[in-house]
């Protein structure tokens, strides 16, 4: 078989999760097999699976878009079930699709009318910087967009991509699969996970020395798993670095709405590049998704990428790649449209929609603080605040005996710890090793997505388990 595939690692759904799944099934047959009644999944940013409710209005519009007219928007009873603005929005979306509806393949870059809405959203977000719908590709979540771009830039085993350490494993996994090299640059935990230019230059120089032809640079902002929100100047220095060394900047901006720290705002790479006078002068791709933010519509597989500064030949080739997959799923395209364009002020659903969004956001914000404070109160834990995204990435001091034990078992201490946590408490986290970290560091990633009561309990459980663990490996 393909050895690249064998070598690919995907920690978010790795050993700990598989164990969690098997515990779930054994709990079904024997509810008293473990000291808990169910698994708390904090391994993955999958909000709806841990109790977050979907926003009502987008679901109503989506349902109407899927229904044939006579049993949907034109049904005489439609107003009994659906608000007026949902009906109108559904009609608008249907008009973008011509007579084809949601059951036909669309243009390979996505439905034109929806791309225009996305372009408008980006212009508004960035304070008026122009966005051309023809540079937008609607994708199945951010993942397929990332896959397309990496596919187009990795030509052989000597091609490499700079990725942060720690990083979200989709990058390392895709690179392994494509047979390219990952070139890690360390984020500094002591400086709120920022990366210094010295570190970037060091990493690049070392890669070049090893014969790696570095093609691209991945920036995740807000960070995953690290949760930091980058300042404008931090982004600018990355942009200059990329431009200086002719690297394609992949800006993973899927958490752009998840910023909790009141002193921080999300600044897009496009905006920072414009301010630095660099927009269009180097290649940049920005990714967004319907899976995160407030929507959390992971199952929908919606998202987009925006290309700027590209050679038209290469852009045409990326179009070809998109067209070989025919098009991204229409439900995902529809959800992307609804994410970038909600009900207008004055519409029937405006207030309820905004309220639902605010409730989700405020609760996430509270949980971000509560969980990080809780973790920091445990002796041996150190955890930076989650300024943004959906994760905390604490560092855990491990007893030497546990480290030895892990070695003996042929695993790492992160995994040993995470499995112990899982079996003792039912909390399913991801070992930090799956994201990469500095040698000698140990820890895990947890989301703060489960509902508040459950999250409070989880904090207690983190604490009691840690004490048990220390006791065991004293």
């Amino acid at each position, binding site marked *: *078989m*393909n*050895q690249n*595939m064998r070598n690919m690692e995907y920690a978010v759904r790795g050993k700990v999760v598989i164990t969690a*799944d098997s515990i779930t099934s054994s709990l079904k047959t024997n509810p008293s097999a473990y000291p808990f009644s169910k698994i708390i999944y904090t391994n993955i940013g*999958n909000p*709806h699976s*841990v*109790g977050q409710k*979907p926003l009502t209005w987008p679901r*109503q519009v*989506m*349902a*109407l878009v*899927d*229904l*044939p007219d006579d*049993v*949907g928007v034109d049904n005489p009873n439609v107003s009994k*079930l659906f608000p007026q603005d949902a009906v109108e929005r559904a009609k608008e979306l249907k008009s973008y699709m011509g007579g*084809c*509806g949601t*059951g*036909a393949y669309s243009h390979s870059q996505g439905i034109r009318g929806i791309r225009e809405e996305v372009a408008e959203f980006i212009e508004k977000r960035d304070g008026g910087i*122009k966005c051309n719908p*023809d*540079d937008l590709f609607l994708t*199945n979540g951010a*993942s*397929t967009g990332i896959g397309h771009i990496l596919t*187009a830039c990795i*030509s*052989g085993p000597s091609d490499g991509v700079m990725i942060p350490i720690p990083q979200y494993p989709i990058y390392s996994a895709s690179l392994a*699969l494509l047979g390219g090299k990952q070139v890690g640059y360390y984020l500094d935990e002591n400086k709120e996970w920022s990366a210094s230019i010295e570190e970037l230059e060091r990493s690049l120089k070392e890669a070049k020395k090893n014969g790696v032809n570095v093609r691209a640079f991945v920036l995740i902002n807000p960070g995953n798993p690290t949760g930091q929100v980058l300042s404008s100047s931090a982004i600018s220095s990355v942009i200059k670095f990329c431009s200086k060394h002719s*690297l*394609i900047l992949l800006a993973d901006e899927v958490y752009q709405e998840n910023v909790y720290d009141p002193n921080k705002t999300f600044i897009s790479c496009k905006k920072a590049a414009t301010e630095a006078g660099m927009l*269009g002068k180097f290649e940049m791709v920005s990714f967004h998704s319907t899976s995160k933010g407030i929507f959390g*519509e*992971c*199952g*929908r*597989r919606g998202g987009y990428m925006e290309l*700027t500064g*590209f*050679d*038209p*030949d*290469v*852009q*045409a*080739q990326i*179009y*070809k*790649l998109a067209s*070989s*997959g025919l098009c*991204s*799923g229409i*439900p*995902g395209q529809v959800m992307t449209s609804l994410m970038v364009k909600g009900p207008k002020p004055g519409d029937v659903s405006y207030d309820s929609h905004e309220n639902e969004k605010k409730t989700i956001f405020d609760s996430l914000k509270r949980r971000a603080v509560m969980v990080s404070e809780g973790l920091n109160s445990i002796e041996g834990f150190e955890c930076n605040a989650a300024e943004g995204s959906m994760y905390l990435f604490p560092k855990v001091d491990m007893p030497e005996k546990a480290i030895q034990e892990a070695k003996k078992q042929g695993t790492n201490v992160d995994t040993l710890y995470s499995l112990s946590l899982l079996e003792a408490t039912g909390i399913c986290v991801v070992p930090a090793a799956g994201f990469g970290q500095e040698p000698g560091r140990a820890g895990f990633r947890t989301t703060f997505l489960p509902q508040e009561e459950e999250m409070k309990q989880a904090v207690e459980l983190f604490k009691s388990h840690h004490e048990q663990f220390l006791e065991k490996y004293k």
Partner: protein
Amino acid sequence: MISMTARLGLGLARGVSGVGNRAAAYTLRPFSAEPKVLFGQYLANARNTEMLFDSIGDGKEVLTKEEVQAFLEDVKPFIRPEALDEIEAKAAGECLNREYFKKWLVLATRFDSQRNSKMAKYYGMLGEQSGAVHKEPKSWNESTMAQNLRRMQYAVRGQVVMKAETLMAEGKEIIFTNIGNPHSVGQKPITFYRQVLALCDLPPQYGVDHPEASKMFPADVIARAREMQDAIGGSGTGAYTGSQGVLKFRQDIASFIEARDGQPCLPGNIFMTNGASSGIQAILTGLIADMNDAVMIPIPQYPIYSALIALLGGRQVGYELDESKGWSVSTETLKAQLDKAEAEGLRVKALAMINPGNPTGQVLSEEDVFTICKFCCANGIVLLSDEVYQRNVYAPGKQFHSAKKVAMERESELRNLQLVSFHSTSKGLIGECGRRGGYMELYNIDTFVQTQIYKLASAGLCSGVNGQIMTSLMVKGPEEGGESFDLFTKEESEIMESMKRKAKMLVKGLNEIDGIDCEDAEGAMYAFPRIQIPQKAIDAARKKKQSPDTLYAISLLEDTGLCVVPASGFGQADGRIGFRTTFLPPDDVMEGAVEDFKRHHEKFCEQYA
């Protein structure tokens, strides 16, 4: 730096062979010795680009004319004569800059210069407002990008379609018969499916539990939506599901397969996918380990196979279907191609079988399926059975036989057959292409490999939930006696009857045209006629560096608005010329289309008489 338009547009010699086995040993030697081998490898699978570039002139910046000549001499057999003329004129008596030479090489190996320049023009047109403009040379460009992507071809959305989109933007009416996208050409979605889907997406208090739900939705729709919401669990349609898909849906699929085949099926072996394409991609990713790994594909074939193999850097080995025998294939043909491939040092890992055929429309008999299974079995080849048209069988007396059924019924003769079968919600009578639903079933696949496929699926998290719902609906419709059953049956049979009628009418109409011959469309959604055109047209195409069927298809498009796919995009016997057309547009449109085919063919022949 040369500009886009000034770049040389040169065609590619096809059918490179005889370099694979030599190439294997080659990586250990200095490259400059044998650029020919590297060039052959580059043409075949776009691997080792950098090595090829490095081999030119031993890495010097400027090449002497002797070096240029020596290189051209080496690569001559791989380049079309007219392309060579141009190169030699350019290179005669000149020292060439190495950078220039690299660029030229990229251009000299374009599949279809015309199409690429159209693509560039397509973007050039947008260029004024777009970020994608040639201001300064980019580091990521045609010669530095992944060459296996650059050299991947995808005909269904190629040059003719782009032209059609341009014409449409100019206001011309286009009939898209290039792609099996039924809803885009007037086929109505099936009401029951859409109603259940809509209810599944609505939060319960606004949907199934809404006091007035029954004013809009039939009772069996509500019941089914409830059942599905229970199956998905509290997280609803907005969460990732398990990587293989929702268990209950996989159970529905397994029951469907059991009822279809009369043989057991395990939900654990089912992977739900985004259409069949992503399943095919996952399997090929798992199979192609290096550049000597090959997949046997039918000629003609649906280009997803050739495109993905190119992208993954593997090799394709074609086996020709015999048009004179209803597009069937014999063991002898298969064996001959396998032997030839092995003699070239290739390792054939898999074989793709498309039944009913695309673009060829044949429905394989049980014996035909057995023959192919037996061949795979005997040679340790994994069979990829593309069965997305299994419900599209029109010819009286013909029946679909799944590879899985044949494999299990005749297990004693087919021991150890490794099989992956694909199905999709995009075709059949359901035609829900935009939904991206589908599944694959693994049969007798090594457990370790299967866990790796699972890992790959989990890196994509899961297939779209709406596609999963649609797949469950496709395999399990409304129950008899329910409120929706009659409407459902009526809608399905109308679609089926109409396809049957149109398949017959189109093939009959095409065969009545002098110079066009077309096999029966026993199944699928396509007719794949061959055409006879005057020599002058063939010469004109050559002059334009186009295939003759591209010239024909563009002429047809400009004249009639009919958008078909040139047959060369699917591969065909040497010297054959033709196109693929669907018969999906409504009856009256198809009737008009048949007349247009006739009128245009006569005009075309006259024009080039």
